[in-house]
């Protein structure tokens, strides 16, 4: 099902965000994705890794973040795993921009961006590690609806 798998491990420091962006950019470009989609993937993976560094690892800079690019027949998937604190999606409320400004807070917008940029976002806690999958559907070979579920392959 997965046609190709590329992996990268970085330490949980923001200095490696640039490395992750280049990694995803390179594979997205090789896969023939549009410049717009490449930009969206770079930003989403940056936001996801930033959240892991800040929240899952609480700023500890030497913990592992495993990034994998999965090329599937109908999807381009970036899978990111960490071994930090699990993200509690059930209790997460998206902040309002004006409220953040009033409180002079700068953070809290990463997840909103990820959701806007990706076709699909999945979180899982799998025992020792947490996983997020950032998904872009590929334009189908027949040039029809790219948003079709994978099962409708012809």
């Amino acid at each position, binding site marked *: 099902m997965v046609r190709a798998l590329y992996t990268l491990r970085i330490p949980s420091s923001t200095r490696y*965000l640039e490395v992750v*962006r280049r990694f995803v950019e390179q594979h997205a470009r090789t896969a023939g994705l549009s410049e717009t989609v490449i930009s969206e993937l770079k930003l989403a993976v940056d936001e996801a890794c930033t959240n892991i560094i800040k929240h899952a690892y609480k700023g500890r800079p030497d913990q592992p973040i495993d990034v994998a690019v999965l090329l599937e027949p109908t999807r381009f998937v970036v899978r990111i795993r960490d071994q930090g604190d699990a993200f509690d999606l059930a209790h997460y409320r998206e902040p*309002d*921009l004006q409220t953040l400004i009033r409180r002079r*807070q*700068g953070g809290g917008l*990463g997840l*909103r961006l990820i959701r806007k940029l990706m076709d699909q976002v999945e979180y899982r806690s799998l025992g020792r590690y947490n996983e997020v999958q950032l998904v872009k559907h590929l334009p189908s070979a027949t040039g029809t609806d790219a948003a079709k579920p994978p099962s409708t392959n012809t």
Partner: protein
Amino acid sequence: MSNFSVAFRRNDNIQILDLYGELDAHTAPELEAALQQCLREGRYQILVNGRNLDYISSAGLGVFMAYIEEIREKGGDLKIAELKPNVYNVFDLLGFPLLFDIVNTEAEALERFARQERPVPPTSPNP
């Protein structure tokens, strides 16, 4: 090694910050330091020129969010000009054009400073 930098320029009483490179969670503290320097020196009319800014993440946007209230309370404003389309798109996705003065050219931003124009935030945000 950082792939981001800020250069300082003045136009009359307007402090212009030219941003270069990629603004993410690693480089955002450099922008924060630049804004703090402006505030320490009492410069509250700030124009950010994004002509050479290639990338921004929410950590970069967060710096603007954290300081805009203080700047406006002091009677100033932070205006943003000449963003590349891919960078503007990130501001737009998060609704920044409603709350920040984002214009196409530096000249336009300077004119708006001269006329003391800035956006009026909506009372009930419509994301």
